[in-house]
């Protein structure tokens, strides 16, 4: 902690420039040692990326598995039995129960099933006349799941109906020709539509926000709490120098963590890196400037670890997750919140990360976003220095 004093003493025999370099290096060593010594830093820099990639790789699955449903077969006909069988053997559904809707309804409330397929009385007769309507009850408290159940239940029914037509050789009432207008979909950059491919690059922004903002805010707030920062300011070290020694180790840690995420993403999850590693490094380095600046600002403004941690969580972590376009589409948000997203640095980071991983180097897209990030960086550092000066004075 007190290496500064020794360096200042040794200053008499050396030139000022040399002293400054040595002093800076000594301080830097002190900070680096503090980081290495504290197991919680390693937790955030190396365990958090693993955890996030793991959860996004396996846990947050937007592609659905077999959904548990119930069937209420009110009709005794062969057609109803055959349709019920198609639901049972469908790869989309797991039919756990076949009972009356009133009984199944309670299961739906409890959340043990996600939908009920009702095959109404008279279904067999209607089918014989070219009709046959079923009812699908979904659990609207899970809107996405409900949409899925409705769409796939209709898919099972339509397939079943089509199969009957081809088996019974009876012409259908509607036209079975090619649709008048069809779409030919192609997805650039991610033809397989793997959700991991955008979740993994997105988690890099989250991890770097954690290190840059949350960790820096906590560490520096502790120094304020204990008064060690004022102690350092009383020495001949300049403000810029002091801030640099606080920031450089976390900058390096942030890039290290980014590298870990990238390697895991590529080798464990098979995410391509189509752009150059240098572009990725440049993008990440630029992103760390607002992240670190924000961390410093929070610590100087709060000077209390608990408050700093909460503010960092609310102003950095949550916006990076929710308002950056990483998990939720910005254009779909209400207008006031859309405006708010322009103040979230990660908003300018997510498109760059997605592009460098999935599309390639596109400096026309990178440079304006980097400019915005640097702007935020300058702003945050500027205010942080101002607040710090005022606190000391």
């Amino acid at each position, binding site marked *: 902690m007190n290496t500064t004093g020794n360096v200042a003493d040794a200053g008499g025999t050396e030139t000022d420039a040399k002293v400054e370099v040595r002093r800076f290096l000594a301080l830097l060593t002190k900070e680096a040692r503090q980081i290495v010594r504290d197991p919680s830093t390693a937790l955030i820099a190396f365990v958090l990326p693993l955890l996030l990639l793991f959860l996004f790789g396996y846990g947050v699955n937007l592609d659905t598995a077999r959904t548990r449903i119930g069937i209420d077969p009110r009709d005794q006909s062969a057609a109803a039995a055959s349709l019920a069988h198609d639901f049972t053997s469908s790869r989309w559904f797991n039919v756990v129960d076949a009972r009356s809707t009133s009984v199944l309804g309670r299961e739906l409330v409890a959340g043990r099933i996600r939908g009920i397929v009702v095959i109404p009385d008279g279904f067999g007769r209607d089918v014989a006349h070219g*009709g046959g309507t079923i009812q699908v009850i979904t659990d609207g408290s899970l809107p996405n799941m409900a949409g899925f159940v409705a769409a796939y239940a209709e898919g099972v029914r339509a397939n079943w109906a089509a199969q009957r037509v081809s088996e019974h050789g009876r012409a259908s009432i509607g036209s079975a020709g090619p*649709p008048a207008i069809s779409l030919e979909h192609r997805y650039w950059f991610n033809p397989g539509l793997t959700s991991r491919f955008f979740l993994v690059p997105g988690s890099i922004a989250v991890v770097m926000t954690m290190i840059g903002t949350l960790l820096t805010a906590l560490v520096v707030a502790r120094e304020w709490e204990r008064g060690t920062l004022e102690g350092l300011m009383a020495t001949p070290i300049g403000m810029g120098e002091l801030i640099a020694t606080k920031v450089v180790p976390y900058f390096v840690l942030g890039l290290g963590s980014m590298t870990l995420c990238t390697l895991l993403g590529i080798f464990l999850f098979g995410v391509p890196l189509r752009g150059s590693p240098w572009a990725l490094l440049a993008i990440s380095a630029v992103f760390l400037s607002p992240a670190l600046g924000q961390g410093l600002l929070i610590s100087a403004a709060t000077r209390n670890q608990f408050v700093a941690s909460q503010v960092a969580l609310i102003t950095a972590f949550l916006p990076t997750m929710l308002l950056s376009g990483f998990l939720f589409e910005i254009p779909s948000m209400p207008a006031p919140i859309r405006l708010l997203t322009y103040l979230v640095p990660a908003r300018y980071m997510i498109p760059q990360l997605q592009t460098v991983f999935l599309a390639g180097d596109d400096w026309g*897209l990178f440079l304006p976003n980097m400019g915005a990030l640097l702007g935020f960086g300058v702003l945050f550092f500027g205010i942080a220095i101002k607040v710090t000066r005022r606190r000391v004075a």
Partner: protein
Amino acid sequence: MTGARLKSIIIKELWAILRDPRTRIVLIVPPILQLAIFGLATTLEVKNMSLGVLNRDGGAWSQEVIERVAGSPNVGRVISLKSDDDARNAIERQRVIAVLRFDSDFSAKVSGGRGGTIGVVADGRRSNAAQIVASYLDQIAASVGASVSRRQVRPVAPSGPVVPTGDFLAGRSVVVNWFNRNLDYLWFTMPALIAIMSAISAMSVTAQSVARERELGTYDQLMVSPLRVSEILVGKMVPPVLVGAFITTVYVILIPWVFRVPLTGSIALLYGALVFYLLALTGVGMLVSVLSATQQQAFLGMFLVAIPLILLSGYASPVDNMPDWLQVIAHLDPATYFLRVTEGVFLKSMSARDVLDNCWPLALICVVTLSASALLFRSRME
């Protein structure tokens, strides 16, 4: 005697949290703002997207499709593009999520009954949104296509495999969405936020409690006081439970009143389950706190617990979709149970029995984590 000691430690713990005005603000104001901001932002609906159109066809049918696309509530802006390079650039720079490309003979093919094809190129970097936009476009194409077959009586020669479509045969599926008829996403997010936000606040407060004493050196004073370990722990559990209950109360008032999400079930049941939930969370938070030597470790440790707690609860994606082994882990997550209760009480007027089914796992989590904390606490004392 125990009562008096307990009372004084509870007062001390409350004072430790609420003394600092900034802490008071940080515990109360952000959760309310978050309800508005994150509640409205976290929608998986895809609306207001920009699309590009490269129309080499001068005919009526491409015009019809474009007008229908532009009129869709899911589409914000339709940008007219001049060339393939233009289209490529618009997608690469993310000005549009997808481009529709009409060949010069599109309308002629449609009118001639040969079936016109629209090329759609979408940005796979945003694969989820791109897929949803594509499915909207499919629906629009199908409905314009249907009007084509109505307008021209000429029969279409069947060719190729039979493709089952929505109104294949006269049969169909009538869909009824229980609990949330219009599948309003807000109705899901808002009750879920109760579980998430009260967890973050309650766990932050608990995690700091023991670690703070250790960092400041007051831990030793606590040790030499006549307080029992159980009394110290109970004292430390009161503030997080109060903070969590306060946030929930604010949410329970604002969600039906401002956001118009129906509260169909019993508030008493919600609060009953809330007590179990908050106790389980303080149990988890206490374990983190006892294991940490400094506040920094406690906070970061809490964070590492909070992330899987939120992501595995069913808030980010349904638990049913996870691989089996991860579902086992999700069932150790207190938020999984309480999320079911908040959704159930708000939207499904859940019965006491169903609520109770979700309470006993919470009680179990609480007992296990608190016993472990007490053991660790005691072992650190010696």
